[in-house]
């Protein structure tokens, strides 16, 4: 199968085709959904050794204060996210959310302090809107630039450290959420010790014209296999991580989404820089009162996967749904179906049994603690 002409390619698209990747349309890009190993083996390989993922479709953006001062860029971005950006130390990265005036989530993103500027990684499907949002709100103070000449490669799994350290030994000393400039194969890269699989690993921003060489060097290591979007989705679901557009979106607040940990104390009521972001009144009120519904893990009791869109009911016979599955499938590592979704707040405690409508049958599903697979980050 080859890429469809009207879809965008990444610097690695030809390599995916060469490696037998099955390409599908995703967020306007032609991306590999799986390689010949198949989703199940790719998932298990990532947990056991290391998987290489092309995430070049995601947006890489720099934010520089016109004053040249990092602090001014940080305070500007804090006008759009309920996150402590000013407190982010140089060489550190943090998860953030763009919020809307009614408290919904416009996108989730990663933000790093690169010394004199901020480096953002945003979702592919949202990047045009995110960049427009940044420019519309921050252009008086900041220059917003999308880095279109770089690829992004994620290397995830317990063998990621040894595989990348073979090319750049200094990455072994990095801790979870560090982001450092690293020269790899003579190319100026920036490497973060992060990812979205629940495994230890790295994301490597590499100049587009050096991406194939880097990917091939990593894939030459027998511990590293190419992994597609299918396994990326099952890995992040087992790790309890939200997929924007499924588990979070304009209709979910950070409190409902159980992302309160992403809002540091300094931005909450009583904090030094409390509020001042879109939807602050809604979000800070929900901190006190709770949200009417909450994102939870869901463990179907049988073997049948319960997929996104399945409605949840308080009982087998109840007439009105109390929630909905937002991501669901089979978890190859837990060897059982796993799901996430929203339920009414009074049913959001682990152990509560709800019922999912699957093809007209009500199947029992237990509210479960997230994640399904414990993360193995190198927190140091």
């Amino acid at each position, binding site marked *: 199968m080859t890429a469809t002409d009207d879809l965008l390619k990444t610097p690695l698209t030809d390599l995916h085709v060469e490696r037998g990747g099955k390409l599908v349309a995703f967020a306007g890009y032609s991306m590999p959904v*799986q390689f010949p190993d198949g*989703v*199940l083996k790719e*998932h298990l390989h990532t947990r056991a050794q290391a998987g290489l993922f092309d995430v070049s479709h995601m947006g890489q953006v720099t934010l520089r204060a016109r004053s040249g001062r990092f602090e001014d860029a940080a305070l500007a971005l804090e006008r759009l996210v309920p996150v402590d950006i000013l407190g982010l130390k140089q060489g550190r990265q943090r998860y953030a959310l763009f919020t809307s005036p009614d408290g919904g989530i416009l996108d989730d993103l990663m933000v790093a302090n690169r010394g004199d500027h901020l480096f953002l990684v945003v979702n592919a499907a949202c990047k045009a809107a995110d960049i427009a949002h940044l420019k519309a709100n921050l252009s008086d103070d900041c220059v917003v630039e999308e880095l279109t000449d770089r690829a992004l490669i994620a290397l995830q799994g317990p063998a990621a450290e040894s595989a990348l350290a073979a090319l750049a030994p200094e990455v072994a000393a990095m801790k979870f959420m560090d982001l450092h400039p690293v020269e790899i194969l003579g190319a100026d890269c920036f490497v973060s010790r992060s990812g979205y699989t629940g495994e230890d690993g790295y994301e490597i921003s590499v100049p587009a014209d050096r991406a194939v060489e880097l990917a091939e060097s990593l894939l030459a290591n027998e511990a590293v296999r190419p992994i597609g979007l*299918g396994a990326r989705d099952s890995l992040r679901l087992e790790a309890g991580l939200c997929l924007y557009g499924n588990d979070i979106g304009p209709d979910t607040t950070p409190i409902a989404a159980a992302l309160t940990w992403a809002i540091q104390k300094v931005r909450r009521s009583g904090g030094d820089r409390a509020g001042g972001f879109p939807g602050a009144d809604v979000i800070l009120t929900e901190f006190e009162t709770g949200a009417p519904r909450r994102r939870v893990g869901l463990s179907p009791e049988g*073997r049948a*996967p319960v997929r996104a869109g399945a409605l949840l009911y308080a009982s087998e016979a109840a007439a009105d749904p109390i929630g909905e599955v937002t991501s669901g499938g*089979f978890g190859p590592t837990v060897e059982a179906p796993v799901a996430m979704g929203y339920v009414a707040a009074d049913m959001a405690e682990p152990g509560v049994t709800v019922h999912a409508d699957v093809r007209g049958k009500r199947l029992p599903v237990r509210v479960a603690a997230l994640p399904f697979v414990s993360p193995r980050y190198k927190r140091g």
Partner: protein
Amino acid sequence: MLKFTEDHEWLSTEDGITTVGITAHATEQLGDLVFVELPETGAKFSKGDAAAVVESVKAASDVYAPLDGEIVEVNDAITADPSIVNSDPRGAGWFFKMKLNNPDDLTELLDEAAYTASLD
């Protein structure tokens, strides 16, 4: 003689009983199966009804009744271990056995050469 549907089922008839499974091509398209739901013995289906469900890590798909008939036996082994369908789709990975209402309907279906040609 084996017969095939355009929906990637195979049928093998012996002593008036038709065994139904999905083709190797179908299993390759679906990927590794993690769940199979089979019909009840005694259930009656018309051609094209969803009779079984197969799920891979990513997605759920229906398996259709290839012709009108009644289910007389199902393969519980594939419910217990769906990977049998991937490893042996034409043998141990069969889905169900049917008593067809009109065995002559089998002549409407594709033979192996026609099915293989339809995949190109």
